[in-house]
Structures are given as structure tokens and as C-alpha cells.
């Protein structure tokens, strides 16, 4: 069994009101160092964690937008957002934060917006799914 195991993370909670998104990000960064085929899917209120421009200074808690900006550097490039969740929350692709940049073109890379049926199909292919 030399094939890499497929592990998916699902992010369904909004940021900041609870620590789940933040501590969940720590898991993703650690797991990226292991030999697994990782994907991250933001759905429901999880897509709100992807909004660019979050500033937690006045709140007095640590933010994580900079860390998301390094996901591609951590070789986490399969990052998806559910289209319907975004639409219901008034979000467009332009609202999404940057998760890295293309090595060659230096173009910013953003999470890929996909439909729920695609997400369902991806879920079914996983070895395990961790909800964060």
C-alpha cells in the first residue's frame, strides 16, 4: 500500500465565535507534513472563514488570515468552497482570501468554488474525513 491515503477536512463553523476554525487550521498544517493526500472543504458557515480582510485586533484575539495565505506553501492546494453556502451569505469569489501564489505566474491562488454535488462525490472517495 504505497498509495497515499486521502484525508478530507470539512470546515462548517464560522470563525472567531469559537476556536474550531483556528485549532482546526493547526491540524491541517501538521498533517501537511505527513504522507497523505489532503483536501479542505469549506461549507455552511465555514465559508465565512475565507472572507478576506478579517481584522481581530479590536477583539483582542489572534487571527489566522496570514496562515491561510501560506496554505499553498504548506502544499495544501486542494482547497474548496461550497458555492451555495457562499451565495446564501452574499459572498462572491472576489471576497475570498488568498491561500498562496502560483510558482510560475505569481498569480494569487484562491480556494476553488464548487457545487455541493462535486463535494459529495469527493467526500465519498476519502479514506477518512475530519470535521473542523
Amino acid at each position: 500500500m504505497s498509495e497515499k491515503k486521502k484525508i478530507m477536512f470539512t470546515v462548517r463553523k464560522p470563525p472567531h465565535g469559537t476556536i474550531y476554525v483556528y485549532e482546526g487550521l493547526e491540524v491541517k498544517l501538521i498533517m501537511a507534513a505527513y504522507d497523505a493526500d489532503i483536501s479542505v472543504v469549506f461549507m455552511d458557515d465555514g465559508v465565512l472563514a475565507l472572507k478576506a480582510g478579517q481584522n481581530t485586533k479590536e477583539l483582542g484575539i489572534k487571527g489566522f488570515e496570514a496562515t491561510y495565505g501560506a496554505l499553498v506553501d504548506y502544499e495544501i492546494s486542494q482547497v474548496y468552497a461550497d458555492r451555495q453556502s457562499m451565495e446564501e451569505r452574499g459572498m462572491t469569489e472576489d471576497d475570498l482570501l488568498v491561500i498562496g501564489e502560483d510558482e510560475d505566474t505569481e498569480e494569487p491562488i484562491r480556494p476553488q468554488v464548487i457545487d455541493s454535488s462535486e463535494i459529495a462525490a469527493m467526500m465519498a472517495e476519502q479514506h477518512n474525513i475530519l470535521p473542523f
Partner: protein
Amino acid sequence: MDWNGRGRTGVQGMKLAVVVYEGPYNHEASDSAYNFVQAALAKGHEIRGIFFYHDGVYNVTKLMEPPQDDRHIANRWSEIGAKGVDIVVCIAAAKRRGIKDEVLVSNVRISGLGQLTMMAIEADRVVTFGD
């Protein structure tokens, strides 16, 4: 967007009580409560007391060691206590969850639900933060 007009004459001498139901870091409740208490003190209000219930009892363990660049929630509450604010941790909720005198930060005390009762009766306003 409008900005809420401030600088209005405050109702001085109002007694406020604050209740916190959730633990540190995991929920924003503790941060919201802290920011609220700071603002109330800055406006000259008396804090009749702060009561930690449910998972809120975890807020004041001195064993917590957050990362260097993060806030230290227990120490923050202890500093509020040092200003003379009565900070009470519910004994029943605390025992069940393993919070005891030996792990408490200073300026905080463990006591019974009667303290919450007295706060609800004596304070002009009770503000609750939770999940």
C-alpha cells in the same frame, strides 16, 4: 452606516453583574465578557460581581499556558479581581470539572450558587455571555 452616538450622560453608579458560561479560548464568550467589563469599569460603573458557571469555571485556572503571542485569559480575570471586583466560580460546576482552589489564579474565589442569586437580585443589570 451610522455610529451609535456616544458621550451621552451615563447612568452613574449603576451596579452591573456579568455571568460567563463558556470556557476560555474555545468560545468568544469569555473575551466578550472581558471587553464588556473593561468598558464598564472605564465608564465608572460598579461591577457587583462576575460569576463563572457551566464551562465558564475553566476561565480561571492558573495552569493554562497559552502561546506567548496570545492573551492569557486567566491572568486577565485575575487582574480584574485585583481591582476589587468580586469574581466567583460556582463550586458545583467547578468540582464536576476539576477546578479547585489549588489551581485558581489569585483574586478569584469558589463559592455557591447563592452568590449568583445575590448578584441577580442586587445588581441593576445582569449581562450573560455564553454559547
